[in-house]
């Protein structure tokens, strides 16, 4: 099976050049990074651009840097880069824990973290984790640079706040002392998407972030559960209380990977197991990052 529709291909070497090219093709160009979603969608005729703009020749987009407690991740950082980065393993090992659950090595070597949130499918693994931090998405467009909060990024099914003539240059994330977990249910390792997923980040002072994946049109954060957890000791009673809130916080569907009822139940289980693990990791006593909780 071949890609049915022909398109043009350009490989700019600066972000400015890339944005100029995009501005000249309103609504008809697609940005290509790792291509693990885009090429599959081209093959499926799910997208049919006139122009594909490959950003892989632009330097500096591979950077993983730490400045104080701010982590900088360039838009070409792959999931394998996250797994292999000493900076990530020291300051935000949760990113590596998440990356290890993404498809296979052959996909992770190519697929980028930023591409994952740009594709914005409901099951995107980066979503529930990035929502656990103060994450900012930095873009460049014809009118210059623009930054938006990750909470305003996901606007609908496969829809983001990034306009068609904008390119994400990098993410910044606040990574103070914290403990996190990413719990993902899938049918088998190596290729499956999430049937349901939970990302939890625990901060000092009994402060938590809780987000879910694959149970709504976009990855979703539950501020109601976060409010219920705030400033209280994390005991069995409190965990039971927030687990009982899960069903009202998510809107899963039945599909080939799982039923809505199963997704709801498993989110409850993942939250029940994930909360104490995140808290223990904050305290330095939890299971090693990468340990599967489900």
């Amino acid at each position, binding site marked *: *099976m*071949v*890609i049915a*529709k*022909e*398109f*043009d*291909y350009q*490989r700019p070497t600066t972000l400015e050049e890339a944005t100029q090219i995009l501005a000249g093709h309103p609504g008809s160009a697609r940005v*290509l990074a790792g*291509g*693990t979603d885009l*090429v*599959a969608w*081209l*093959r499926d005729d799910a997208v049919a651009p006139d122009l*594909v703009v*490959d950003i*892989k020749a632009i330097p500096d987009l591979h950077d993983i840097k730490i400045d104080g407690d701010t982590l900088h991740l360039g838009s070409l950082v792959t999931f*394998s880069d996250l797994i292999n980065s000493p900076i990530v393993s020291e300051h935000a090992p949760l990113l590596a824990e998440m990356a*290890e659950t993404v*498809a*296979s*090595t*052959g*996909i992770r*070597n*190519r697929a980028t973290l930023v591409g994952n949130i740009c594709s914005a499918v409901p099951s995107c693994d980066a979503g529930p984790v990035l929502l656990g931090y103060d994450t900012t998405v930095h873009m460049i467009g014809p009118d210059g640079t623009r930054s938006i909060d990750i909470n305003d990024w996901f606007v609908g099914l496969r829809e983001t706040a990034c306009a068609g003539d904008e390119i994400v240059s990098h993410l910044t994330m606040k990574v103070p002392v914290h403990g996190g977990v990413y719990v993902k249910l899938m049918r088998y*390792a*190596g*290729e499956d998407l999430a049937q349901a997923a939970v990302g939890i980040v625990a901060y000092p002072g009994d402060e938590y972030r809780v987000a879910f994946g694959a149970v709504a049109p976009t990855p979703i954060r539950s501020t109601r559960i976060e409010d219920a957890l705030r400033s209280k000791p994390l005991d069995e009673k409190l965990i039971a209380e927030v687990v009982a809130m899960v069903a009202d916080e998510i809107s899963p569907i039945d599909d080939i990977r799982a039923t809505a009822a199963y997704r709801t139940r498993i989110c409850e289980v993942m939250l029940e197991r994930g909360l104490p693990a995140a808290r223990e990791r904050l305290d330095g006593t939890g299971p090693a990052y990468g340990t599967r909780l489900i």
Partner: protein
Amino acid sequence: MEFTVKVNGERWDIDAAPADVLLDVLREKIGVKSPKIGCERGDCGSCTILLDGKTVRSCLVLAVEVDGQEITTVEGIGYEGLSQLQDLFISNNAFQCGFCAPAIVLSATELLDSNPNPTRHDVQEALAGNLCRCTGYEPIIEAVLAAAEGGAK
């Protein structure tokens, strides 16, 4: 579009359309047949190649993307005779039909290059996403572990 790529050490000047997928160009224009056409959506692993030393799914790469890069397929690995890893795949009877074999050899080669002493879990992780419908995977994992013990690359 014209571009240049090195395949198993040999330089190729290719003329391909932007919509041409790397897997098809490798098989049809360059004549390298070890990357197989399987699921064509990145799930089965059979089209795996090494691109600048890292495994990628050639069914999800546009040919024009690899301009100036270096590709190794199993033909290149075995250029000067079988590698120790390949010998151990044979002696462990690790493959039957062989459709998945080139991709698994490349995936294991990438693993042993970066991690000469993998655990069983490391091997399983590295090979995950390479589907084999014959063996049940056990002899494949055993072969890779044996290669690691023997200091193979």
